[in-house]
Each structure stands twice: as structure tokens, then as C-alpha cells.
């Protein structure tokens, strides 16, 4: 029973996905958006299920007698088919768990389900005009979101590999979903080829882990590495190989080659998903592996990540300068954004201070979800109405769709990290963590990059505000898309004005299964 409870968000999504596949067969004829509605209901249920399992009763707490932080381990020898509360049991007894539902997992479950709801709202209008077979789309999408959640909680190399591949395969299909569209097919193939190779390399790294330590479990691997320092070279080599797999998901340079083409060709809601979902989930796994398995070599991988961060953000930003297609531009921008997140991880300082790198990276991810989602919702709204995806076609948007133009300006400011936006809070913590860890040079390169990025973010705004409208009248936006937009914008503003709840949520989530700060 406990098992079902603590896997309920994933189970709900999978059940609804199967339900949609089934109903799609039954209602062969024009299903309208009924299946989309069912998917949305599933998503909302999963959201509440996540909330339900992430809080624990806390008698005597001020206000509601509950608090964030309910941690259990699942699928372990001590679990006996149920769940073991991590607050009452020593880690040593449950370190063979395959999956944990800890604060960190729940944080990424929230990120996944919020992303899912936002993108679902955006895809109603988009899919109903472009594809006849919508059922599979919604079903696959639910599966992709559940894969994200599974990635967040995997603590075993096998689970990590399976859930990563689960997310990859659903993403490949979603990318190529517009069957008649050549670009969509091309994007899917490229994505698939790139993904298979990096998976293979990652698997190789995992096999070295196993060979060296005799365990698939991250915590146990970590214990072995900590004791036997003669394994250092092997451990770091294997970690570097695994970085290929994670780097592919996150779209880090030099594993970013697929991103621009996949982003451009995929249906735009899927592009939005690719720019958030796999990135966040990839970070979840990367963080788990680094902090649970090779924390002892923290100094080594921290330098490696810092260098990767510099390359990633610089390359992403510089190439984004020359893009004229909005989807490609946002693709390179999201590569650069991953670079900023990496700064936070590189600056992980084991200090548990407020400016710790782990806090920073989680805050940045959360903030990035709303901001990037919002930007993509604007792009989708404009594409739905006019088919335009080129910056030059955005002329005069302030006349044609004032709300879209203003919100786009706001999201672009947020992506660039200029207050008063949530993006500023993210950058503030990321750069702060770098300074806190004594990596001032990294912070300096980071801020220079964020100045460069303003140039292309504002290039999108320039035609929208400064140039006359080439053709066409008002643009109408469908109700659900509008709702998603306004919620994203409000949250982007609210996180800036009242960041305390987010900071508390994040510092609560940074306590992770098996992470013993030494």
C-alpha cells in the first residue's frame, strides 16, 4: 500500500496514459480535445498526489500542522515490499534501495508536473490544427512526464539507465510527431542517433562503476570510492563517460549538437518540453550521481564542471547571437542557460549555507521552468495564429497582440536575469554561489555572458516593439494558452517579489538520500 502511495504521481500518469491509448482506439472518429482533457486531469491529479506525499504531519508547527519533507526509500531489502521512512532508519540499512521518494525527488516531481501542465495547455490549440491523431500525443506526453519523475528518484544505476532511456524514447517519438513534416522527421532521427551514442557511452561508464565497486547502488558506490582512494582515476574516468549521457539530456557543450535541429523541427510544444523537461531531469540525475557516488572527488569534478559551464554558456550565447529563427534562438539560449545552472553545481561547497551551489542550481531550475515555459507559450501563440517562427516576422506585435508582446518582453528580461523578474533571483543565487565557493573568475565569466545574452534576447523584442507591422490584424490567443501565459508571468513576478517560500522549499529539498556532508 505504501509502495503505491509513494509512487502515486508516476502511477497516475501511467494509468492515464494507458487510458488515453485505449480510449483513442475506442473513439476512432474525431475525438476533439477530449483526450487532452483527460490528460490534463491526470496531470492535475499527479500534482496533488505529489503535494500529498511530500508533506509530513508536523504537530505543533505554526499555521498548518504539516511541513515539507517526507522521505522514504522503496524497493530495498529492508523495505519488504513497502516503504521505509528515512527519518527513522539509518542509511546503511536501506542503501540498496532502487528508488527513493525524498525531498529532492519531490522537488523534481513538482518541476515535472508543472512543466507538464503548462505544455499541455499550450498543445491543445497547436495539435488540433496540425495533427489528426492526437490521442497518442497526449498519452506519450504523460509517459514522458512520468519518466522525468522517475529520473528524479532513481538511486541505482539500473533505474537511472532505464528511466533515462524511457524519457529519451518518448521524446524521440514526440519530436517526430508531425509525420508529414520533413523537418520534424529529420529532427527526430538526429535526436535519436545522437541519443543512442551518448547512451552507449554512458552505459560504458556505468559498467566501470559496477566493475570497480561491485554495486549498482549510488550510495554503496560512494562508500567504496570513499574508502579506496586508489580507484580515483577509474572513478573520474567513468564519471566523465557518464557525463556524456547526462550532458546529452541537459544539452551541454559538446553534447549539444542535436538541440538546435531537434528544437527547430519538433512541434513547438514539444520543443518547449525538450528545453525544460529533459534538462531538469538530467540535472536531477547528474546531481545525484555526483553527490552520492563521487562526492569524495568533489574538487576534481567541480573544476571539470566549471570548465564545461564556461564553454557551454559562452558557446550557446555566441551562436545564439546569429540566429534568426526564434525556436533555434531559444534552443541556443537554453544551452547557455544550462551553463549557468552548471555554475551552481560546480560551486557546490558542502557548506549548507544559503549561497550553497546546490541551492542555487535548484532555484535556477525552478525559475527557469516558468520563464522558459512563458517564452515558449508566447512563441506558440504567435505560431498558432500566424505561422511565424522567424524574428523578422514578429514586426509590430505590440499593435497586433499587446499582451503577448509585453509578456515576451518580461520573459526575455527574466531569461537575461534583469530585475524585477524571477530570472534575476536565479542568477543572483548562481553567481552568489560561485563567489561563495571562491570561484570569482567563474562568476565574472557568467555575468559577462549574461550581458552578451541581452543582445539576442532584445533582438527578439526589437521588431515586436520598434518596427511597424508588416501585415495582419489582431492576434487572438486561445483561452487555455492565455491562462498558462498569465500564470507563468505572475509566478515569474511573484518569485521575484517574495522569494522566501522558494528558498525554503529548495533548501528543504537539498537534503538528499544518502548525502552525508563530510
Amino acid at each position, binding site marked *: 500500500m505504501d509502495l503505491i502511495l509513494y509512487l502515486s504521481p508516476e502511477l497516475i500518469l501511467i494509468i492515464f496514459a494507458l487510458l488515453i491509448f485505449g480510449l483513442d482506439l475506442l473513439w476512432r472518429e474525431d475525438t476533439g480535445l477530449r483526450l487532452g482533457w483527460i490528460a490534463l486531469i491526470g496531470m492535475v491529479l499527479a500534482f496533488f498526489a505529489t503535494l500529498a506525499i511530500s508533506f509530513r504531519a508536523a504537530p505543533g508547527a505554526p499555521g498548518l500542522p504539516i511541513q515539507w519533507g517526507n522521505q522514504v526509500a522503496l524497493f530495498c531489502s529492508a523495505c519488504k515490499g513497502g516503504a521505509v521512512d528515512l527519518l527513522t532508519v539509518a542509511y546503511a540499512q536501506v542503501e540498496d534501495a532502487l528508488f527513493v521518494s525524498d525531498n529532492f525527488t519531490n522537488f523534481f516531481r513538482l518541476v515535472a508536473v508543472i512543466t507538464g501542465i503548462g505544455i499541455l495547455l499550450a498543445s491543445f490549440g497547436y495539435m488540433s490544427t496540425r495533427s489528426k491523431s492526437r490521442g497518442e500525443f497526449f498519452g506519450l506526453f504523460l509517459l514522458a512526464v512520468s519518466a522525468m519523475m522517475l529520473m528524479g528518484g532513481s538511486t541505482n544505476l539500473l533505474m537511472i539507465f532505464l528511466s533515462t532511456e524511457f524519457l529519451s524514447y518518448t521524446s524521440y517519438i514526440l519530436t517526430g510527431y508531425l509525420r508529414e513534416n520533413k523537418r520534424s522527421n529529420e529532427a527526430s532521427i538526429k535526436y535519436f542517433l545522437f541519443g543512442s551514442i551518448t547512451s552507449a557511452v554512458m552505459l560504458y561508464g556505468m559498467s566501470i562503476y559496477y566493475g570497480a565497486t561491485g554495486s549498482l547502488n549510488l550510495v554503496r558506490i560512494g562508500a567504496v570510492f570513499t574508502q579506496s582512494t586508489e580507484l580515483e582515476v577509474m572513478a573520474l574516468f567513468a564519471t566523465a563517460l557518464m557525463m556524456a549521457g547526462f550532458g546529452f539530456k541537459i544539452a551541454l557543450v559538446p553534447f549539444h549538437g542535436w538541440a538546435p535541429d531537434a528544437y527547430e523541427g519538433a512541434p513547438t510544444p514539444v520543443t518547449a518540453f525538450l528545453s525544460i523537461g529533459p534538462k531538469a531531469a538530467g540535472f536531477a540525475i547528474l546531481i545525484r550521481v555526483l553527490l552520492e557516488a563521487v562526492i569524495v572527488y568533489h574538487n576534481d569534478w567541480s573544476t571539470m564542471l566549471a570548465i564545461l559551464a564556461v564553454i557551454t554558456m559562452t558557446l550557446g550565447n555566441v551562436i545564439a547571437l546569429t540566429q534568426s529563427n526564434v525556436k533555434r534562438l531559444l534552443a541556443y539560449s537554453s544551452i547557455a542557460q544550462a551553463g549557468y545552472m552548471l555554475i551552481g553545481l560546480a560551486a557546490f561547497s558542502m557548506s549548507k549555507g*544559503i*549561497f550553497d551551489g546546490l541551492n542555487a542550481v535548484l532555484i535556477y531550475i525552478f525559475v527557469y521552468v516558468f520563464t522558459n515555459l512563458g517564452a515558449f507559450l508566447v512563441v506558440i501563440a504567435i505560431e498558432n495564429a500566424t505561422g511565424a517562427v522567424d524574428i523578422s516576422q514578429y514586426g509590430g506585435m*505590440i499593435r497586433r497582440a499587446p499582451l503577448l508582446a509585453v509578456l515576451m518582453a518580461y520573459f526575455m*528580461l527574466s531569461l537575461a536575469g*534583469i*530585475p*524585477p523578474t524571477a530570472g*534575476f533571483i536565479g542568477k*543572483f543565487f548562481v*553567481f*552568489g554561489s560561485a*563567489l*561563495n565557493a571562491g570561484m*570569482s573568475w567563474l*562568476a*565574472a565569466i557568467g*555575468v*559577462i555572458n*549574461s*550581458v552578451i545574452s*541581452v*543582445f539576442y534576447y*532584445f533582438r527578439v523584442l*526589437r521588431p515586436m*516593439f*520598434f518596427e511597424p507591422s508588416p501585415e495582419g490584424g489582431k492576434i487572438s490567443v486561445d483561452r487555455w494558452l492565455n491562462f498558462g501565459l498569465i500564470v507563468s508571468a505572475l509566478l515569474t513576478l511573484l518569485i521575484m517579489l517574495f*522569494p*522566501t517560500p522558494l*528558498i*525554503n522549499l529548495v*533548501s528543504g529539498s537539498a537534503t538528499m538520500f544518502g548525502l552525508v556532508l563530510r
Partner: protein
Amino acid sequence: MLTALVFLPLLGGIILLFLPTDNAIKRFAVIWSFIPLILSVVAWVIYPTWPEFTMLGTNCSPDIVHASQMFYLGECVQWIPVLNVNYHLGVDGISIPLIFLTTLLTTVGLYYSSRVINERVREFFFLFLLLETGMIGVFVALDFFLFYIFWEVGLVPMYFLIGIWGHAEDRPHYSAIKFFLYTLAGSVFMLLAIIAIYLNTKPNTFDIAVVMQRANQPFASDVFISTIAFFGFFLAFAIKVPIFPFHTWLPDAHTAAPTAGSVILAGVLLKLGTYGFIRILMPVFPDVFRQYAIPIAILAVISIVYGALVAMSQTDFKRLIAYSSVNHMGFVILGLAAAAIMTPDQLQNQNLFNTAASGVNGAVLAMFNHGIITGALFFLVGMLYERTHTRDLNSFGGFGAQIPVYGGLLLLTVFASLGLPGLAGFVGEFLVLRGSYATLTTLSAIAVIGIVFTAAYFLWRVIQRVLLGVADEKWAKLPDLHAFEVVTLVPLAILTVLIGVYPSWIIDTINQASVAILNLIGGI
């Protein structure tokens, strides 16, 4: 009180988004802008009697209250407790005149714009009021985090003001993004410096008033970190002022901006930089500032002389005024550098203390004067442009006889700007030189040569080319100033004369704050 002053403009901007017609928007914006103007006058009158805090919500810690003794009308509420970020506002004799300058120029600018802006009216007035919120916010913020946010908030509206309402032939898009990127490039380093201060204070704090207290000097021990942090701030402020060689954004932005935008840009936005010098660099980094005061003073003198020489070679009226800003702002920095160079021991000496105080007073007064005088000059340029549709100085001439009211006001403003005794500009620059002569004798002497160049370009390029000579045929039907244009200029002209003849009312206000800051540095 201060919260109202900061956010009322924004509230007005939001209200006017829902007004039906352009005329209603214009009328509403102008009338609404009188509220902050009146509030700033009231604040000026009552602030010395109001040293205690107004607490809003959860109180700030006692050490903040204790540290803010030199500030008035204080307001403080915890904002992000985990980071120790507070919503902490307060004013002293330096910020009060600058707030008044901001609200005055905004009202005047809105009034003038309500007659000349007829395109995308709603956006224009909204952005203008948003800009006012950002500017006042910088002058009242006493928390680094808050300071940074207001600092950046002012940036975005200005970008759109230049880009949308700029003159098409001046490449407004290019100038707008150049302005934005330059300013941002400086301010991101300020952000890093702010975080560095937080990380190096015990207990960690973002509070400007707390960090200012000598006992809490975060960097007294670590020279390297304090130097880096100093230059983080310095870069942000130097670009904003702008000091040579960071000034290249300024002529483009000024030229491209619409008239009221140029007025605010020159009148207030440049002051944000010098205000940062006084509010942050001097009290927070006295040792580092002292160490680098001479190089900074040299840059200031280069700005003075170079600004004047470049202004002299301009044929575009507006660019000439823009470069004159580089020239005048150099004096402000010179005055501050001269005060910053004093060691605490020297400040114990009453004579030297007075010298330093006169440098700071002169600098702040020069800021205020530059705001009203250059503001008026940009209005005058804009008014001439509305009539002639050109700013080419070579095509003008003989306007003194043609449009005498215009000529008279231009003459007054130009004389004030070049420092004629009896008008405002003289008082500020005189005090600066009085402050700098004792410690920076050679540089002061060179700066005085700069004044000669200033007189040269104003008399030779402006007075001679515009007012004297024989008018071209094509200007025969030029109308003189309309009533609304006179109304726009008169408040500025009155202040110019008033400060020139009787400056002590404003100097007394400023002096109280400069003395407090110098006492802090001198440990007196």
C-alpha cells in the same frame, strides 16, 4: 512616506493603462506627477524633524535601526529574512535634493511631452512614470539588493523610450541597445561586488547603513577583496556618470532619445552614477577610494577637458550638449575624489575637513545644477528642432532677433552652464575647485583650463551660431516660444537664478549630509 514617493508614479502608470483616450492619459499623467513632486517638497521640509523609523510589518533588526542614525524618514521591513535582505529606505541631505530634481524634471518632462508626443501615447507615459519609480527608488534605497533592483528597473523604460520615440535618422535602435548593454555591463559587476560584501560581512548583511559604519568595515583586513569589490561598483557608476573613457554610449543615447527622454537621461540618470560614488564608494570603501583617488581625479580632469574639446568640434546641437555633460560631470567626480583623498588624520584638522566638505557639497550641488541647466538645454534643443527639423548648428543664425524669448532663455541657460557668477552653475563648480585646490592643485589648475574651453564652445558654437549673425531666409517665419514651452522652462530658469543668487538654502541641506559622511570616514 518614502514608499508612497517611490511607488505612486508606478501606480499612476498602471491606472493610465486603463484610461480611454490619449487626452485623458496625458492630462492624468501630468496631474498625477504633481503628487510625487509635492511629496518630495514636503519631504524636504519635514525630513530633519523625522529621524525615527516608520515600521511596516516585521521590524528590522536593532543594529540596522542603530546604524541608520544619519538617515531620516526611515522605513524598514524584513523582505527575505533568510538572506537578511530588508526593504530599507531612508534619505539624507544628499538624496533629498536629487529626489526633488527627479520629480521636478519628470513633471516638467511629462508636461512638455503631453504637447509634443502624439504617437503611442499610452506606452510613453506609462514608461515615463515607471522610470520615475526606478530613479526615486535608487535615491532612497538603503539596502544593496533593493538598490540594485531599482538601479536596473530604470534601465528598461529608458531603452524603450529611446528605441520607440527616438528620431529615425539617429539610429534609435542602435543607440538604445548600446545604452542598455553599456549600463548593464557595468551593473552586473556591481551585483558581484554586492554579493562579495554580503559574504564578507559578519554577520552577513546587505544593508548599506550597516556596512557604512566603520565598526563593521568588512574589508578593512582584506585589501584584495575590497579592491575588487570597489572596482565592481566603480565600473557600474563610472559608466553611468559617465567618466572618460566609459562615455561613448552617451552621445548616441542622448542624440537619439526624444526630448523629455534626453532631459531625464542627462538630468537624473547620470546622477545615479555620482550618487553611487557618494553613497557607496566613499563611505563603504574609504581606504580603497583614497588609494585610487588620484587616478580617478585624473580621469575626471580628462573628462572635463576632453568633453569640452569634443563638444567644441560638434556641429550637431544635441551632441554638443551631450558632450557638455561629460565635461560637467567631470567636476562632480573631481570634487568627490578631492574629498576622498583625505586620510582620517587629515580630516581631524578642521581646515582640511572644511575643504573636503566643500568638495562634496560642491559635487552634490553641481549634480543638482547640471540637472536643471542641462535639462533646460535639452528642452531648448528639442524646441528648436520642433521648429526647424534640424540640429545642424551651421544652418542656424540670427535667432536672437528672430525669436527673442527663445534667445533670452537660451542665453540665460548657456551662461549658467558655462559658470557665470550669479547663476547656479558657478556656485557648484566654485565649491568643487575650492575643495580640490588644496589637495589636487595641478589637476585643479588643468580643470580650470577646462572651464575656459567650456566657455569657448558655448559662446563660439552656441551663442554665436544660433543667436548671432544673420538669419537665413528659410527661417523667416519661425514662431517664437509657445506658452507651454515657456511654462516648461520657467521653473528651471527660476531655480537657476535662485541658486545662483542665494544658494545657502540648498547647500545647508547638502552640507548636513556631507559632514555626516566625512565624520564617518574620519572616525570623528
